[in-house]
């Protein structure tokens, strides 16, 4: 059974609306609740980190503490939530006894079962699926598959904590080079307390033969997840990376503040796909994940390419702007996004395309779908700096509204300092037309199936950008997320 089929099976077999809301009963090792310098030292010690990294964390922590004291938490996004008590969160939670397993046989069977339920192929039989997976459970990575085969090609794919120990010079060179620790409130918090995440390095001229994937799972109660992912594609290399996320159903909100940094050198290409399905809260808007994420890629070399594809169906609140800094001449940035908000979900998401080099090009396709009381905002920046001769941008942002209590918003910022640069931006807001619905209903589709069909058509451009394994899952997720929004 392939990963996607498994996923569909999982989706079908589990009843209810949110299919991943179970909790794994597993003993965990927590850092004491709350955040101060001891927490940072605790995390750093647990991971046997070198001095420079601890110093970096502490620098970030001190800045964050100051910003928090001055109440500098960002408020410009179109989202509302009660104040987060940062001292009421566990910043580190690890399944007990989790010395890094040598092989999957050493992994706690409870954990394996969890991933089985989630439809993530950790077992070697997943070779059929052809996806290398790094599974992150709360704060630590529990298993990484296919490491050996990748190693033969010189590709490093491992938890970032392991990379810090084994490839410190690469990590030190690139960590924080795209998203500095002082970047924004949540990135600063992440820099201070980040626990695990994936690290990928693809050597010059190597085309990574399989999809790399990380699966994030928040399990522990009252914990936050702060993973950090760093991907470096050296000259002329190629890598495609997938990321998926789930969490148990809980009444309280949980914080997820991740940072992802991508670096593409000359002629390199990175494709990064996310299917974000954190727990969105219940029908009354209780519980759910706060997904406050900083993702940014740097096209450092000439002709490099970075593409972000995201399907955002989960989370109570999404605050996320995967961006590309187009430094290298002729580099290309892409952003394809589907964001769904149903019930009381709120999403403020979009991208930034910063054109620095000559003839840089970027494309933005954003599809926002709101239902129930959902609030969905596209917020994007396209900036051409004076040196960006001949740069191009095309943006298209469409919003689909289902029901009269939801909202769809578009806030693009377009700034040009070069006359030869060209930007085109279009945005529309509409609802599913009665004609479309009638047509489908007349041909025997139920109201729900009709909406699913139309929504899938609306998102097609973006779904097509996903690797096959994810496209099917994403399509299903859209249907599940919008369940109960019509009729």
């Amino acid at each position: 059974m392939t990963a996607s089929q498994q996923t569909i099976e999982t989706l079908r077999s589990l009843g209810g609306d949110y299919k991943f809301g179970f909790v794994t009963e597993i003993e965990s090792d927590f850092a004491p609740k709350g955040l101060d310098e001891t927490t940072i030292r605790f995390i750093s010690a647990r991971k046997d980190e070198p001095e420079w990294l601890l110093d970096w964390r502490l620098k970030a922590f001190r800045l964050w503490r100051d910003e928090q004291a001055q109440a500098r938490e960002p408020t410009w996004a179109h989202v509302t939530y009660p104040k987060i008590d940062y001292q009421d969160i566990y910043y580190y939670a690890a399944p007990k006894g989790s010395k890094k397993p040598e092989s999957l046989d050493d992994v706690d069977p409870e954990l394996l079962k969890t991933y089985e339920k989630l439809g993530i192929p950790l077992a070697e039989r997943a070779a059929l699926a052809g996806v290398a997976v790094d599974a992150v459970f709360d704060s630590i990575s529990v298993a990484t598959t296919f490491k050996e085969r990748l190693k033969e090609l010189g590709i490093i794919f491992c938890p970032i904590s392991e990379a810090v120990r084994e490839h410190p010079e690469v990590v030190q060179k690139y960590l924080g080079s795209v998203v500095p620790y002082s970047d924004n409130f949540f990135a600063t918090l992440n820099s201070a307390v980040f626990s695990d995440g994936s690290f990928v390095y693809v050597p010059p001229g190597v085309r990574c033969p399989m999809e790399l994937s990380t699966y994030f799972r928040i399990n522990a109660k009252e914990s936050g997840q702060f993973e950090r992912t760093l991907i470096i594609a050296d000259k002329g290399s190629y890598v495609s990376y997938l990321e998926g996320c789930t969490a148990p159903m809980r009444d309280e909100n949980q914080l997820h503040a991740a940072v992802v940094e991508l670096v593409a050198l000359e002629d390199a290409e990175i494709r990064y796909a996310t299917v974000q399905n954190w727990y969105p809260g219940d029908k009354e808007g209780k519980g759910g994940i706060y997904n406050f994420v900083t993702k940014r890629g740097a096209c450092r070399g000439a002709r490099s390419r970075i593409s972000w594809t995201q399907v955002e169906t989960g989370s109570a609140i999404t605050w996320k702007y995967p961006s590309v800094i187009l430094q290298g001449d002729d580099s290309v940035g892409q952003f394809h996004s589907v964001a769904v908000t149903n019930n009381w979900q709120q999403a403020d998401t979009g991208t930034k395309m910063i054109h620095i080099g000559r003839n840089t090009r970027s494309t933005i396709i954003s599809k926002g779908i709101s239902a129930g009381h959902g609030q969905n905002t596209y917020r994007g920046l396209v900036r051409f700096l004076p040196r960006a001769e001949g740069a191009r941008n095309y943006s298209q942002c469409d919003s689909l509204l289902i029901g009269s209590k939801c909202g769809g918003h578009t806030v693009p910022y377009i700034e040009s300092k070069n006359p030869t640069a060209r930007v085109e931006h279009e945005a529309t807001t509409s609802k599913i037309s009665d004609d479309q619905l009638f047509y489908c209903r007349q041909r025997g589709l139920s109201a729900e199936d009709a909406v699913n069909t139309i929504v899938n058509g609306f998102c097609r451009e973006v779904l097509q950008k996903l690797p096959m394994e994810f496209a099917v899952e994403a399509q299903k997720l859209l249907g599940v997320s919008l369940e109960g929004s019509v009729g």
Partner: protein
Amino acid sequence: MNVNTPHKASDFRPSAGREHLGKSPAWLDGVREAAMERFREDGFPSPKLESWKFTNLSPLARTTFRSAEATKGRKITRVDLEPYRLTPDCHLIVFVNGRFRPDLSALDHVPDGTRVVDLVAAGEDDLQALIAPPAVAVEPRARTLFDLNTACMGGGAVVHLGRGAILDPVQLLFVALPEAEPAAFHLRNLIRAEAGSSATVLESYVCLGEGTYWTNAVTQIDVAPNAVLRHYKLQAEGSAAFHVAETSVRLDHQAAYRMFAASLGSQLGRNEVDVDLAATEAVARLAGTTLARGAQHLDTTVRIEHSMPRGTSGQEFKNVVDGRAHAVFQGRVRVAPDAQKSDAQQISRSLLLSKTAAADTKPELEILADDVKCSHGATIGDLDEEAFFYLRTRGVGEAEARSVLIDAFIGELIEHITVDSARTYFRRAFDHWLADGGRP
């Protein structure tokens, strides 16, 4: 009135320079004091505020202004104003350095049922309408210049159209005669169109001579059911001037409001337009252009609020930016919950003509009702190379080819002006700009 620490602006005295207004009602004094208090508290809006993100008023805040006083030194006559008139015989109300000048105005033949007077002659009703907050709410700190205007307003036109009245057209002409010491003119205009009335109103801001001054204008507009207002505005201030204007429009059931605004003058200008479609089936069509060169910074900020169902709004704005100039367009459309069947379209285009020109655009949709048709489009770029080449191959000189293409770019917009005389008026202003200095 000297303002040595304009950031704090604690030296602005609302009563100064208003002696000519005579005794104003006590409640109005209270309103003015409160507005002044807010301005003192928050000072000039800073780019930290979202709605002022692209425009920095510090050159304005740094300048010390004296209060508006009637010019003593220079005399101007009707002949001086001729080039700026819409037509030689249209109704005309003239303000020089912020003061009403009956001797230069032409108001003798204003038709029955209509009234065109100075602020001094405003009735209680007019005053109430004049001090109403702007039609679309934003964060209060972004509105401190409106507050300052409320506190200091010392002149402005009150145009009142009775039921079914027709006034076609009237020109409000604001003339600046700058002197060595910079002066600030806080103008407050009111246009009230009662049910079924129809009018064309042209606001022109012009300058005779050179020098620094500041026009801070607020125009309040109420359009009653089934009334039609065509509102045109030419901002052709002097090259060292500051121009900040707020136009606030409230539309009643089936009211129609058409606006065309051209911003050509001033070193630093901001034209803010707020329109509330406050009742069902209202229509607002806005168009405009900014022509900026040299080191000008010109900002157009539009907010349209669809408060009630079945409203229609359209916006088309174009910027031409040359030299080191900077043009800004911000356009927000908000559709309130339950304002179903709203139709809102917006287009903004910017043309950058030089390597050092810059344009910032922020179109924004905030939609809280589902059965709506809303869209916006925005482009920024330079002249179409192929079109340019086409003209060059046919023997058209470089400068002329450029001018033809720019002319074509803004020429389309003129179609939005439905009154012939106004179309000619703006055409002339654009031709002047294309030919040279940018002022008619």
